[in-house]
């Protein structure tokens, strides 16, 4: 198992080369094909870039902080070397004409994208079972789901194919698969990382983050990706600076509504163990109440489908993406293209969005949800007046079985109950490995902080990290 710094040091010292590291990542990807974590490998381009970086190192040029480090991007990041499919038939053959800003920034530091990871089509889902190309299997048990929507990215990190992978998180899509596969997952403050060149889902909560094996690697990747981008006007001026060590005595609130009987007992047990570690490290942990938690999922499944119905209107078969054959009218072209290009969950969300935005329902659903969102944000602000961070499980259960929740969308949505509240409020939230169930399935703990407290949250997790 290699951390980012191990790889960088091996290459810089001449013990290894970028080419050798990329070849190893590609071999590891092939050896783990049965997990179906990847939709494509970008081998040719990756090896070319590796040779370029090796040549620059031989000539003594200054190379970046990630020189020769292979990584994998979720397949909703526009990247060269393979199609960007968003795991959909709609974009199955879409060759991106440009790269996402996040990918560009990593490449400028010498990182090498070696493949594209599986996801729920258009990132709609919590298990990666909504991929048009078949589900990804959990890294710890192939009968279990990978989580989602960034399931493939979590699994390739857990399986040591690469030291880090990119994901997107709109309501838990990084944190929940990180929890299910025992890796670190970072969803930053809304606006931290540019979303330019990433397939849009719900613009008011979409964020970009990463999966890593430890906190230090996450800090490095987030440090590189964060910052303002003229191509994404929602980005914040760069505020992310990793913190070496945090003072003991941080005040942490454990959200009592997240530890009820509705949460699996084994999950709660691991959270309690993590709380003990925090206390042993000199922090204080107290029970707090976030009564708005019970309404957050309802808000989310109004606001997000509304934004999805708008964002996905662009897939009309005209300028790019799939176009239906043998149609006689324009309306038929739109209708058939979208029926063929989207999976059922995409259609559900688009239609719910159309419903909550239609006249007569707009005030009762959409407007009410946005007002409730204000109440949720206010209740977080009240807690953050006293507490440095809030703690809860990431998900009510460890990874569930493949097929277990696919027949009941509401049941599937309930897996997001802990992760959607910080998304609606734009707060940073990280998923950190906390332990495992008796069956050996990983359990993650979620730490949530105030806006722009990302580095402090990571430092808090680092203060109790096992080396």
């Amino acid at each position, binding site marked *: 198992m290699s951390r980012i710094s191990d790889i960088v040091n091996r290459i810089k010292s001449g013990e290894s080369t970028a080419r050798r590291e990329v070849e190893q990542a590609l071999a590891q990807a092939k050896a783990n094909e049965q997990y179906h974590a990847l939709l494509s490998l970008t081998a040719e381009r990756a090896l070319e870039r590796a040779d370029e970086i090796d040549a620059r190192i031989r000539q003594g040029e200054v190379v970046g902080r990630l020189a020769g480090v292979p990584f994998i991007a979720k397949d909703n990041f526009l990247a060269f070397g393979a199609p960007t499919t968003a795991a959909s038939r709609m974009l199955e053959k879409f060759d991106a004409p440009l790269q996402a800003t996040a990918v560009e920034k990593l490449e400028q530091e010498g990182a090498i994208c070696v493949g594209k990871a599986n996801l729920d089509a258009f990132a709609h889902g919590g298990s990666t079972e909504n991929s048009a190309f078949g589900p990804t299997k959990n890294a710890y048990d192939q009968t279990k789901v990978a989580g989602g929507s960034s399931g493939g990215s979590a699994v390739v990190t857990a399986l040591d194919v690469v030291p880090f992978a990119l994901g997107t998180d709109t309501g838990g899509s990084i944190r929940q698969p990180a929890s299910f596969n025992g890796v670190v997952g970072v969803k930053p403050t809304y606006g931290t990382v540019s979303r330019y060149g990433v397939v849009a889902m719900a613009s008011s909560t979409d964020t970009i983050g990463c999966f890593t094996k430890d906190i230090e690697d996450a800090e490095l990747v987030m440090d590189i990706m964060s910052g303002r981008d003229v191509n994404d006007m929602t980005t914040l001026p760069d505020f992310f600076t990793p913190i070496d060590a945090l003072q003991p005595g941080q005040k942490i609130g454990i959200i009592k509504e997240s530890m009820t009987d509705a949460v699996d007992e084994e999950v709660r047990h691991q959270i309690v163990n993590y709380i003990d570690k925090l206390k042993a490290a000199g922090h204080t942990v107290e029970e707090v109440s976030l009564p708005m938690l019970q309404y957050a999922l309802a808000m989310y499944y109004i606001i997000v489908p509304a934004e999805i119905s708008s964002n996905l*209107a662009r897939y009309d078969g005209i300028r790019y993406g799939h176009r239906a054959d043998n149609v006689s009218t324009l309306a*038929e072209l739109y209708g058939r293209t979208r029926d063929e290009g989207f999976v059922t969950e995409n259609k559900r969300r688009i*239609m719910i969005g159309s419903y909550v935005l239609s006249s007569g329902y707009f005030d009762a659903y959409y*407007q009410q949800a946005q007002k409730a969102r204000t109440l949720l944000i206010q209740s977080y602000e009240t807690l953050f007046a006293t507490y440095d961070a809030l703690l809860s499980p990431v998900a009510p259960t460890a990874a569930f079985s493949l097929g277990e929740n696919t027949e009941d969308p509401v049941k599937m949505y309930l897996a997001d109950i802990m992760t959607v509240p910080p998304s609606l409020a734009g707060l940073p939230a990280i998923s950190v490995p906390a332990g495992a169930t008796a069956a050996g399935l990983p359990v993650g703990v979620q730490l949530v902080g105030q806006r722009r407290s990302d580095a402090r949250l990571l430092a808090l997790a680092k203060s109790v990290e096992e080396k």
Partner: protein
Amino acid sequence: MTVISRNDVQHLAQLSSLQLTDEELDSLQADIGNILGYIEQLGELDTTGIEPTYQVTGLENVSREDTVIHSQVTREQMLALSTESANHQVKVPKVL
């Protein structure tokens, strides 16, 4: 509990430019009814006098220099993404 009729589902599909099969309409009718049943609980909350939150950046009126930024992407590359193009234009079925 919201009852969504088959006509409602057909109307939503039309609003969403989705031409669905009969089977899809059946299963989506049930799913959408269940989802709306879940999200309706939000009606319990008293939000009198509360302002809605549409975005959470705290940013307002972000602007940049009014200068042309030349795209790295060419017209040919963009046209190549379309299923059908001719004479530097995207081709679509007859509209009228």
